């Protein structure tokens, strides 16, 4: 029986992007549905009644929620192709640790970057760059966070890089000088079809961001 896979998503969502990349890495065919987050559809509310958030993966009618959990699920079900987590327990733990760090720290700091101004924004910028430098240290001289192969941490971090373009413009800074290895890493990841086809066009994302600022009443 062929697998039926539906992804409830919202195209600018960093969390949704992670799942798209994972599905593409595994070469999986799925139905993509973009949700209107101001008018959430009955399927989303039925499949994620607790948080009512995207992304939600629906695999043969069963919902899986929370992006990191979905990516692990995809990796476990379709384990024979392009494994995202390493096989060794210690390295798996390290991958989960960094994915957790990315979700908790980067996400919050990114939001603060564009919602603040002046001195507060400068302080947030500094913290954001420090966060990225820490990740750059973890990458080291490896081609990917997963080592020779694109892996779990790479999947979790790449979506933030698609938004980094927006943050750099919004907060007037550039990480090119500060984190050259991460820039190289991001370019390497973008050469992968699974990544480039899963991330939105930068300009489209920036236009969305301008709209988002308006909704939040930010100049």
């Amino acid at each position, binding site marked *: 029986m062929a697998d039926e896979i539906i992804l409830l998503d919202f195209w600018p969502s960093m969390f949704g992007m992670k799942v798209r990349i994972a599905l593409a890495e595994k070469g999986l065919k799925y139905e993509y549905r973009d949700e209107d987050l101001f008018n959430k559809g009955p399927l989303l509310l039925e499949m994620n009644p*607790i948080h009512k958030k995207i992304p939600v993966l629906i*695999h043969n009618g*069963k919902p*899986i*929620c*929370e992006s990191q*959990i*979905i990516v*692990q*699920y995809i990796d*476990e*079900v379709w384990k024979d192709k392009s494994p995202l987590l390493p096989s060794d*327990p*210690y390295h*798996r*733990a*390290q991958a*989960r*640790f960094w994915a*957790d*760090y990315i979700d908790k720290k980067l996400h919050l700091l990114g939001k603060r970057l564009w919602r603040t101004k002046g001195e507060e924004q400068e302080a947030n910028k500094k913290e954001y760059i420090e966060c990225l430098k*820490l990740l750059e240290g973890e990458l080291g001289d490896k081609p990917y966070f997963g080592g020779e192969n694109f892996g779990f941490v790479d999947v979790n971090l790449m979506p933030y890089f698609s938004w980094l373009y927006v943050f750099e413009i919004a907060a007037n800074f550039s990480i090119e000088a500060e984190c050259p290895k991460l820039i190289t890493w991001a370019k390497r990841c973008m050469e992968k079809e699974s990544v480039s086809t899963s991330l939105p066009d930068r300009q489209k994302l920036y236009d969305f961001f301008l709209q988002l600022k308006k909704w939040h009443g930010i100049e």
Partner: protein
Amino acid sequence: MGEVKVLGASLSFFCCRVEWALKLKGVAYEYLEEDLRNKSPMLLQSNPVHKKVPVLVHDGRPIAESLVILEYIDEAWKGYPLLPEDPSERAKIRFWARFTDEKCVLGAWAACCAKGHEREKAIESAQESLSFLEKQIEGKKFFGGETMGLLDLVVGSLPNWIEFLEEHGGMKLLDEEKFPSLYEWAQKFINIPIISERIPTKEELINYFQGGQNSRLTTGK
């Protein structure tokens, strides 16, 4: 088996769950109590990113963040399974583990700290979160089914924590009438020997809190 150390704080439920997991697996370990106001060089070296407990150190290699540690323990030592085999069941457990930490542990704390008309809303929100856990345990002996699993160890943070917050905050959260299955599970859980021999009690938490060191309560993760 290797050399296993746990860096922890005695009043942290996040640290307890690591010890409970090791005990279920029959893994011998050395426990090192941290003074969180004066963190040891070993802690700062083992968890330089967050500088928090718990940290598991296995053959000199540190692992931090309690949920990451629990999965590591399950994968590094076979025998007693903490997670089921089926990927969709594993995904459910992971979902509810995060939910418990984010909505219930923190939600109960928020309800205790809230003042005035915000208090009622916070209590309602915390109880709504507990109602989801109630549905998960209804008709089951443990969250893990017939035997305790990872989710029991995570939800195990709640009984004494809530009991303490209820007394400290002068409110009722884990109402036996509203949440009969969760209440029953809680009474059973805290009396299981490997749990009861290593669990912060309401009295210990009250004593500590009245000592004015409440910042310690939320620094463990």
